[in-house]
């Protein structure tokens, strides 16, 4: 069944397997992108090209209203960018009010590749954050073997 984008939020957590999910306060929108390389293995047996899947890749991006409070998750992302450290994020829906269990979405480890601030006159300051996922993201519902 379709779900509103409002319900699929970006959270920061402390481990790849769970932890406490803290919503990235001020979030306006987010996107999560998965891709796989296509390696051509065509031969002369057919006129059509043939491919196998190669390396897979995932990236994420999130736009927030900028909040530099040191106790808020945005500061954690900025710190990770400055220090070259990875962060753990979850983009999706947690099950039920107050739940800390992912019901649908992706839990991943990533490096922060971009954090751009825009400060326009007469508007709330915004920040755009880009994340490069390292390793395989854990999808919910789980992907079977």
């Amino acid at each position, binding site marked *: 069944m379709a779900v509103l984008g*409002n319900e699929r*939020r970006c959270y920061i957590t402390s481990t790849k397997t769970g932890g406490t999910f803290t*919503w990235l*306060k*001020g*979030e*306006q929108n987010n996107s999560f992108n998965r891709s796989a390389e296509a390696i051509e293995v065509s031969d002369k047996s057919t006129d059509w090209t043939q491919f196998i899947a190669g390396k897979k890749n995932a990236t994420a991006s999130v736009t*927030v*209203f900028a909040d530099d409070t040191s106790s808020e998750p945005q500061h954690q992302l900025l710190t990770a960018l400055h220090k070259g450290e990875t962060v753990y994020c979850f983009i999706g829906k947690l099950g039920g009010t107050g739940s800390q269990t992912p019901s649908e979405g992706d839990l991943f480890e990533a490096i922060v590749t971009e954090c751009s601030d825009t400060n326009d006159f*007469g508007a*709330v300051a915004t920040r755009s954050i880009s994340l490069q996922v390292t390793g395989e993201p854990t999808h919910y519902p789980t992907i079977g073997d």
Partner: protein
Amino acid sequence: MGLFSALGNVYKAVRSALTRTGVYVGETADYPRVEIHSITESEWLDKGSLKSVSCIVECISDKRIADVIEMNAENLRRMLESQLNLDKGWKVVGVIPGQLQSLTETTDTKEILYRLLQNITIYVQR
């Protein structure tokens, strides 16, 4: 994301900030007066609780245009410099004055009215 509205809260705070002696504020037919001409709350701006409330604060005088200009300046000073006191967990993120429109109403059978309409955008967060 909750089902909260900031409209009533902002209206109360603006009305309170504008109230002072020498000027009628609110529902009355006397002059000089300041009215909250209209107030509009936006949809949610993020997945949390950020909203903008746009209001038009109107100054009216039946004497002279200088009166309404001075009243408007005092309105802005009160809204920008004094804290707009919101309750129920709402906080003001920013107060942005916008477009200012001047109107002079003249009719043969009526007195001349000098009106100034000031657009103001207030960003609030809960």
